């Protein structure tokens, strides 16, 4: 590992983070929230100062795959550590571990909260809390790639993008990685702004519209009211949010295809079709299941069902209805779509629809081969062959996914909470959803967990957001050996 380059990039990340805190400061000054302003000023100065020092480290330009992973994993941890400062300095959340949990939950777009009462917290802090979703949704490294002029190397920035982008394989939509990052961010930004505008037109207060748009765009789910989106009684607003959540769960390269008028390719995208298929199917099944709870108001049942499915599947975690009180079938079904998650290349979390598709296709091919050994079958996606390396990567991911989930559940179980709470708390943090079942349901929160559990759950969130490997990689001792020989970076292969 090249320590210098890692330090340099972490410095960059902190500089960006400090700049991102500034709007919250203005809001605080505008509203006269003195305590919060002081906290933000200190946080910004501290983050900026350390960031500046680190970013001045002299280093070479080449980022190996290893460095990319470490920058990504460490960067996210450091970012959360400093991002927690405004909460801590302002004493809104007294204990640092809770601040960290809240910030990690923000950056990883999870939306699980330890706050028992949201109302009453200063607007500037609430703004920062929701804005972490927006930053985390597309990723701070992708942002860096989009704005910072990368040194001319041999395609190494790709190593950064790959480490942070969700999905089984990263597809470039433009030949240059910086262009790809830029286009993605422009689409992201435009969608977010359009959502704010729509919400304001529908009559939502401007501040609410802004923070809700951030939380939706990042598929995060921090709300600024204790009863989440149910606070806005307007059906129109609720449905607007539901639709936008679903939109942010779509692979952004599909939007690029649409923008460049490749409509056919966009609609033939298998993941895109399955994503909507699963969402519509789940809405109908759950809707039917909960009809008895809405006597004489079937429409409301399906509206709530759609909102909840959209919120859970895109791993946002907003709520209009307390799905914890729904029949067992619906609760179980929601737990399943929590794990399925959104599309690759979106801001959502979870296992990703494309991975699930790959796994099922692989299974089909393997079974066909067992009966018919001479027959040659290949896994194809969007009409193209899936490279073996992608397939192996996906199976490895699935294995790691299961192991981490099981181990985390074991540790959280030490707290002695009931099984439903234990299992769903891990599932909903690991898949970056937010609310789980029972104690951590829509009305509950995570404040009752022990520090150990909070730590484990925080790491689960990071593992889920960064798709496991960068963080796991950091744990392997080989990575921490200093590079003595200047090895040429491995060429990364573009696929799917």
């Amino acid at each position, binding site marked *: 590992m090249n320590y210098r380059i890692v330090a340099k990039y972490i410095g960059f990340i902190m500089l960006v983070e400090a700049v991102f805190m500034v709007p919250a400061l203005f809001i605080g000054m505008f509203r006269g929230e003195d305590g919060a302003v002081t906290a933000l000023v200190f946080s910004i100065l501290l983050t900026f100062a350390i960031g500046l020092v680190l970013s001045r480290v002299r280093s070479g330009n080449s980022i190996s795959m290893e460095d990319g992973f470490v920058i990504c994993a460490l960067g996210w941890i450091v970012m959360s550590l400093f991002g927690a400062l405004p909460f801590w300095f302002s004493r809104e959340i007294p204990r640092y571990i809770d601040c960290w949990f809240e910030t990690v939950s923000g950056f990883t777009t999870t939306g699980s909260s330890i706050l028992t009462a949201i109302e009453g917290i200063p607007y500037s802090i609430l703004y920062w809390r929701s804005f972490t979703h927006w930053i985390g949704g597309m990723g701070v490294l992708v942002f860096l790639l989009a704005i910072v002029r990368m040194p001319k190397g041999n395609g190494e920035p790709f190593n950064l993008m790959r480490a942070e982008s969700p999905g089984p394989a990263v597809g470039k939509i433009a030949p240059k990685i910086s262009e790809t990052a830029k286009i993605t961010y422009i689409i992201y930004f435009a969608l977010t702004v359009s959502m704010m505008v729509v919400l304001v037109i529908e009559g939502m207060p401007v501040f609410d519209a802004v923070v809700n748009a951030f939380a939706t765009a990042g598929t995060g789910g921090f709300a600024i009211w204790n009863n989440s989106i149910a606070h806005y009684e307007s059906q129109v607003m609720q449905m607007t949010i539901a639709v936008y959540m679903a939109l942010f769960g779509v692979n952004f390269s599909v939007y690029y295809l649409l923008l460049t008028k490749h409509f056919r390719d966009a609609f033939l995208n298998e993941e895109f079709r399955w994503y909507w298929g699963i969402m519509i199917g789940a809405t109908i099944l759950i809707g039917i299941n909960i009809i008895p709870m809405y006597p004489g108001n079937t429409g409301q049942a399906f509206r709530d069902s759609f909102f909840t499915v959209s919120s859970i599947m895109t791993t946002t975690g907003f709520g209009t209805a307390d799905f914890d009180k729904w029949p067992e079938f619906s609760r179980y079904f929601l737990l399943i779509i929590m794990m399925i998650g959104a599309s690759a290349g979106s801001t959502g979390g979870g296992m990703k629809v494309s991975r699930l598709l790959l796994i099922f296709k692989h299974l089909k091919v393997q079974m066909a081969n067992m009966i018919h050994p*001479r*027959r*040659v*079958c*290949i896994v*194809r996606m969007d*009409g193209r*062959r899936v490279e073996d390396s992608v397939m192996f990567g996906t199976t490895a991911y699935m294995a790691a996914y299961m192991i981490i989930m099981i181990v985390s559940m074991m540790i959280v179980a030490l707290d002695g909470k009931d099984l439903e709470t234990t299992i769903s708390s891990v599932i909903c943090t690991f898949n970056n959803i937010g609310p789980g079942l029972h104690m951590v349901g829509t009305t509950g929160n995570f404040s009752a967990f022990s520090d150990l559990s909070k730590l484990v759950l925080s790491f689960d969130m990071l593992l889920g957001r960064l798709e496991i490997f960068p963080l796991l990689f950091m744990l392997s001792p080989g990575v921490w050996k200093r590079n003595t020989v200047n090895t040429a970076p491995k060429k990364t292969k573009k696929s799917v």
Partner: protein
Amino acid sequence: MYICLFPAREVPENQRFKENRMKIVIVGNGKIGHLLVEQLAKEGHDIVVIDTTYEKLHYTQEKLDVAIVVGNGASVDVLKEAGTEDCDLLLAVTNSDEVNLLTALLGRKIGAKNTVARVRNRDYDREMNLLNTSFGLSFSINPEKTAAREIFRLLQFPSFLTRSSFAGGRAELVELMAQEGGILEGKRLDQLPAILNKKALICTIERDNEVIVPSGSFVIQAEDKMSFSSATADLPFLLRKLNIKTQNIKNVLIIGGSTTAFYLANYLKRVGIGVTIMEMDKDRCEKLCELLPEADIICADGSKQSILNEEGISKVDAVIPLTGYDEVNIMISLYAKSIGVKKTVTKVNRLEYLSLVDTTELDAIVSPKSLTANEIVRYVRAVSQSRDGSVETLSTINNGRAEALGFTVPETGFFLNVPLRDLKLKKAVLIASIVRNEQVIIPDGNTCLMRGDSIIVIADPRRMISNLTDIFLDNGGNA
């Protein structure tokens, strides 16, 4: 009762074909190149052969009355040495597509009047129209695709159907009899475009031993013998519309995953025939699997009978061996026939093998090499005749009482770009189909003739038509 008639016969090259000697440069003296040299030399053209190896060229020169140039055909110096600057035709048939394309491009630039290149790669084949225009090719040949098209043709239709193919197998004339109570009985001809979706045209009708080129008011009766013109690709549609059962082949086993197999599988999948391809090479299997999602690919040695049995050779309707070995292909077909497979089409390149086996047992034989050579020879004949619009091909239909003439529309003429309804054709003369940019057009009153079109004209033999201008009434234009 639709079976008809007498096979179309190729009329010997009589005085109606003009003697037209051309200067031809052939680049590449491989299998196909050699066959071409042989054929074209026989037809009396002046030929220069270019190849990189002297030995084979020398042999060719000794055997045939041709000139040779040793060197790289894609080099301008070599091309000039061979006299490409004033040649009528440059044929680039080396085994490399890229060299052929480059040769054709350069040849065209330095003055060859017509260029033909052999392009067989699937990746280029898809963009052939673009390549043809950008490389200035008059024509391109793809032996594998030609073979596949021929196999498909053989597989698809009952052998009793009388058919004549034109324009390299793209357009067809089919002779059928109107059935009693059939869809066509009692219909006026001008109602037909609606029934047949403008995909076919009735050219001649034979009734009471008289052959007529009918007009729109003609009413079809049962037992009329009709000849239709249609695109080859639309033939299945036509037969289905007329309720004629084709040989019922639902699934096909192809042995050997060659390029021909790929093209054939594509043709078959378009008409909904199930394809299984057996190929030994694992990598090739995966490639095929990628290219042909609908086909079943089996990685096994198809020359082994036990494997053929295990993979269900007895369950398929047709077996098509396309391996690189003629002997193996013949043996597989014989075995398939012996266990009762309905149909086999065997690829055999060295036709001399066929004298050793009882060919009646092999349903149909396809020789890609000679198919391709024939295609080129046909084209060369066309070029040598088409410069002034004289007749290129001639075959008779309705037992010699009508003839189908092939023309290429020349560069100039009063008939260019004029809707057909404004052109006065002679009586009992009909334009049956037009092939333009590989597309078959069934003409109606709005269609125009454009230069470079291949057209098929149906005419009364007594008219003795030998030039395209002969089909028009004298007052038809101001030429």
